C-alpha cells in the first residue's frame, strides 16, 4: 500500500515554482502551477543527474538546469532532446495547508 507523506507546507512553494523534497533516500520535486495546483515528480532529470528543483517552471513545463531538457511536470512527459525518458509522477493532495504526496 502506497503511503501519503507530508512533503511541505503550501506556502513553501511559490506560484509557478518548484522545491526539492527528500524522503527515504529518494529525492522528489514538488511543483506549484500558475493556477495554484500542486504536482510531484522524481527529483532528478532522467538525462543526467541534475536536480529539477534548480530548474525553471514555465506554465506546465519544468526545464532542467543542466541541459535545458524539458518535461511536462503534470504528466512526466519528456518534451524532446536532450531528454528522452519520461519522469515518474506521483499523486498529490493538499490537506490543512500541507502538500502530501503518495509514494509507492
Amino acid at each position: 500500500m502506497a503511503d501519503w507523506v507530508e512533503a511541505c507546507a503550501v506556502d513553501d512553494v511559490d506560484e509557478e515554482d518548484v522545491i526539492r523534497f527528500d524522503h527515504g533516500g529518494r529525492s522528489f520535486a514538488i511543483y506549484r502551477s500558475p493556477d495554484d495546483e500542486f504536482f510531484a515528480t522524481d527529483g532528478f532529470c532522467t538525462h543526467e543527474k541534475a536536480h529539477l528543483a534548480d530548474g525553471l517552471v514555465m506554465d506546465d513545463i519544468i526545464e532542467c538546469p543542466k541541459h535545458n531538457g524539458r518535461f511536462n511536470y503534470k504528466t512526466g512527459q519528456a518534451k524532446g532532446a536532450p531528454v528522452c525518458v519520461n519522469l515518474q509522477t506521483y499523486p498529490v493532495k493538499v490537506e490543512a495547508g500541507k502538500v502530501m504526496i503518495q509514494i509507492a
Partner: protein
Amino acid sequence: MAGTIKRDYSLVGESTRRAIETGLASAEWYHTDVPRRTMKELMQRSDSPAIRDTAIWLGAILVSAAGGVYFWGTWWCVPFFFAYGVLYASASDSRWHECGHGTAFRTRWMNDVVYQIASFMLMRNPVTWRWSHARHHTDTIIVGRDAEIAVMRPPDLLRTALAFTGILDFRYSLPALARQAFGKLTPDEKSYVPEMEQHKAVIAARWHVAIYIATIALAVFMQSWIPLVLVGGPRLYGTWHMVLTGLLQHIGLADNVVDHRLNSRTVYMNPISRFIYWNMNYHVEHHMFPMVPYHALPRLHELIKHDLPEPNPSMWHAYREVWPVLLRQLKYEDYFLKRALPPTARPYRGEFHEVNMSAAAE
C-alpha cells in the same frame, strides 16, 4: 604527476576511461551561490528580445545579400558580402547556441526554427551537435569526454590560424554531413548521441545535403557563382568573427577541472561583437548557469563577479594573455593559464585541482 600521460582527445579512448574512472566525467561542478528568487528572475524567458534581435539579424542578412547581388561584378559588392558573411556564418553560431539551449525565446517552436536555420548556415548537423553540446556542458574541457574542445594540446597553431578562414571547418563539415547522410556515424558521435536519436541525425544530414545539391544545381543552371556565394560559401569568408570570439571561451585555460571559473573566460567586448555573439562573452556565467538567457547574462555577471576571476577587458587583452601560453604549450602541453580567483571566492574540489595546478602559469 599530471601531464606525464599524453592527452587522447577521442571520446572512446584512454582519456575517456581515465575521466570516468577518476570521477571527472559527469561530475558535480562549482556554482556560485545565488538566491533562488533572484535566479528564478534571471532565468525568466521572454520572446520579445530575441524576436527583435532575430528581425534585425535576418533583415540585415537580406539587405546585405541584396546589396551584394545588386553590385555583383563591382568592388562595391565587397562590403555587402563582408557583412553578409559575418551575419550568415558567425552570428548564426550564437543563434544556434542559444536556441539549442532553448533560452533565446520563451516559445519553444521559435527556438526550434531558428536553431534549424542556424544549424544549416553553419553546416552543422542539428541532431549530433545538440548532443555534442550537451556533453560540452556536462564535461566542459574534460579530455576524452568533451566533444567541443576547439584547441587541443599541444596546440596546432597553423590549424587554429586557418580556422579564421573557415577552410578547415568547411573541409570537415561538408564530408561529415555527406557521411551522415549515408547513415554512418563515427564512434565518437555514437558515444554522445543516444541510439534512439541517431536516425534523426541521418535524416537531418540528408536535408542539408539535398539543399546544397540544389544550390549547386542552381549555380550551374544560372552559370553564376552567386548561389554558392550566398549559400554555403559564407562558411569560408564569414566565419572569422565566430572564431575570433569563440576561441576565447576556453583557450589556454585549465583542462580536467570541475570549476568553470578555471576553464572558461569572460571577456568584455564591443556592442557589435556582443550583438553578433549574443553575449556569449560572459562565458563563465553561461556555463555556470546555462538556464539564464543571453539578454540576462550582463545582470548575472554583475551579481556573481565577486566570485569569479577578473574578466579580460578586451579581446586584444585576452589574446595577448593567451599567446605566450600557447607558445609554451608547444613544448610543454601541461602548461596553462591559471585564473586567479578573488580572495572572497570559494575554492572547490581540491582533489582535482591541486594536482593540475602544478603546471599552471600564475
